[in-house]
């Protein structure tokens, strides 16, 4: 099965062949590297931009104004912060022009911990991204969703922020991408660039099929009755694993993959909380003014009388960065054990 980097690459190939994407650009996005995580390797429309994040976001806005469908990459989300005002402009242009201009652009950027990236390669961006109105924000937790969400993003009329959990970029999927060959070694031979000289290399793309994960739709990945876990990105597979472990211990956890952070699937979340009466929101951005806090607030305001326990948030510690040492990283952001413990505790909490 394809990993997420390959899935993104295949989606972008599909988009440049079928959806009018003519610019896929950013630092080191074009040949010979094809992106520091190889997510843009072999794409015919991928090109290297100057090392200038403001220029990258600005050019994407301009291209979108000119009716193109740019896909711009910020190499690490850690470096997107110096473009915040441009992101705000991308988000407010449709509104401020009273509906006259719209910007069909995608910005993709790897986020979060998991590769021992230390303080400037481990930032999350979900709390900040959800604070910028006018964007749609997606974050896949598996290759098939990455493929489907990227295809949806490339069909949008609005700016879409595509957050790639970097810890999951190399993780193989459990479901096949439509058109992907059965043998994963064969896939690799077809679309992964060889090491060394790549000047003559051309990918051999499989016959990919359209497959879109609709923006705004979450997914139940484990059904359960006692407690709901809502997550996305790196922490989502951990929540699923925790649910599997707890099930063996007699605790039934429903796990929801939000997939889109804005506009998010409140109906799905609400329905699950109404069923279980208990909810844990899990992500790895710093916990103060966290997107999960918004979800906690909404749960309390709308579902107070259905709740059997206070809604809880498990998120990254509010510290200035993630230290390089294994111990420091593990202590800073939620790990499997933390999630399992938090869910177990919540499941047994009585009013």
């Amino acid at each position, binding site marked *: 099965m394809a990993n997420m980097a390959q899935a993104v690459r295949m989606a972008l190939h599909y988009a440049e062949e079928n959806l009018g994407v*003519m*610019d896929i650009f950013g630092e080191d996005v074009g040949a010979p590297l094809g992106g520091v995580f190889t997510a843009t390797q072999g794409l015919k429309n991928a*090109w290297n931009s*100057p090392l*200038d994040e*403001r*220029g990258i*976001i*600005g*050019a*994407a*806005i*301009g*291209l*979108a*104004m*000119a*009716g*193109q469908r*740019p896909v711009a990459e910020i190499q690490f989300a850690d470096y997107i912060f110096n473009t915040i*005002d*441009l992101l705000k*402009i991308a988000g407010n*242009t*449709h*509104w*401020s*022009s*009273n*509906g*006259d*201009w*719209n910007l069909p652009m995608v910005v993709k950027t790897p986020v979060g911990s998991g590769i021992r990236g230390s303080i400037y390669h481990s930032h999350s961006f979900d709390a900040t991204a959800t604070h910028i*109105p*006018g964007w*749609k924000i997606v974050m896949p937790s598996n290759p098939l969703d990455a493929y489907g969400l990227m295809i949806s993003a490339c069909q949008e*009329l*609005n700016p879409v922020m595509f957050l790639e959990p970097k810890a999951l970029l190399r993780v193989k999927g459990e479901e096949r991408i439509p058109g992907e060959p059965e043998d994963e070694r064969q896939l690799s031979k077809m679309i992964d660039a060889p090491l060394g000289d790549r000047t003559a290399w051309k990918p051999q793309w499989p016959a990919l099929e359209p497959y879109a994960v609709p923006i705004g739709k979450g997914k139940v990945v484990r059904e359960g009755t006692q407690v709901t876990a809502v997550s996305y990105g790196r922490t989502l597979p951990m929540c699923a694993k925790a649910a599997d472990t707890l099930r063996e211990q007699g605790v039934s956890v429903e796990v929801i993959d939000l997939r889109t952070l804005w506009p998010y699937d409140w109906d799905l979340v609400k329905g699950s909380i109404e069923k279980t009466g208990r909810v844990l929101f899990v992500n790895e951005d710093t916990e103060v003014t966290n997107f999960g806090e918004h979800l906690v607030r909404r749960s309390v305001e709308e579902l107070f009388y259905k709740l059997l326990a206070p809604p809880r948030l498990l998120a990254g510690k509010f510290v200035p960065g993630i230290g390089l040492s294994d111990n420091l990283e593990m202590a800073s952001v939620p790990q499997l054990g933390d999630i399992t413990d938090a869910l177990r505790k919540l499941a047994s909490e009585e009013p």
Partner: protein
Amino acid sequence: MSRPRLINRDEASAPLERELLVRIHDLMVKTRALEERLIQMYKQGHGYFWIGGPGEEAFNVPLGLLMKRGQGLDYDYLHAHYRQSGTMLALGEEPIGALRQMKNTATDPYSGGRNFAGHFSKREWNIAPVSSPIEVQYSIAPGTAMAQKRHGGDGITIVTGGDAGTAEGDFATCLVWSSRPANPLPILIIVTNNKWGISTSADGQHGETRISDRGRAFNIRSKTINGNDPIESYRELKEAMDYVRTERKPFLMEALVSRLYGHSSASGANFVANEVDPIKEFEAKLEKDGVLTRQQMDELRGRYTEELAAAARQVRDEPQPAPETIWNHIYAEKK
């Protein structure tokens, strides 16, 4: 694209065709009347904030006249800043729209009562929305230029901003992205230099002799011109635009202009007597050359002043946007 050098300065700025001179003058006066009306509206409490371009008419009007107006890649894109009512009127815009934006009415054609005065936006003519954060347009403009380069044709991208703002990284972004050897862009990069930020004078901030000198480091053809002279502006803009149109390469132009009412309402919006008034100078020339009489010009001024006063009365009675419209246009929807 060199043109024959004329030795005599007066000859060099020899008049354009009479008809064009009259048209430029008409639009300059119309622009001034509009700006003065906007200032008056602000001072009478019919608006919250004024910012605009009295003093820049001699440059902005020729720019609008020379633009290829229309929608899409075959036409010129303008990424303007907030002092360009002259360019809008020269493109054919009706001044009442600016009054509506000042009064933030539902009928405001640029933002529906959402944005400041001088913040034009008109997709039908490739006028990108003016944004309050200054200089961001210099990061955005290379995007439309890139699309135009790929498209072919002779449409170009024009970006303008102020001198103080060139200290922002976005200005460097524009020079870098426009002059990449891999893909030089058809973009006219303009800086209107009025020698001021808000209250900070250029002397304290600019190490470079001329802002246009910064183009040299990027092998961008550049020039500083007297933007207070509409004839020089017209000629230089035409030459620069022809170059960008045909060579598909960037050009950096610095235009020296006046700031006649200070920075904005934030600095009082009062007439500044010690700046060159480009209309006054142009009118003296037109009178001397026998193009227009004093009486004709005074009548024109009077007529526009009256027209704009009437327009302001009309706008005063137009509705404000309804509160629930805050939810409109957050996202574009497929139709």
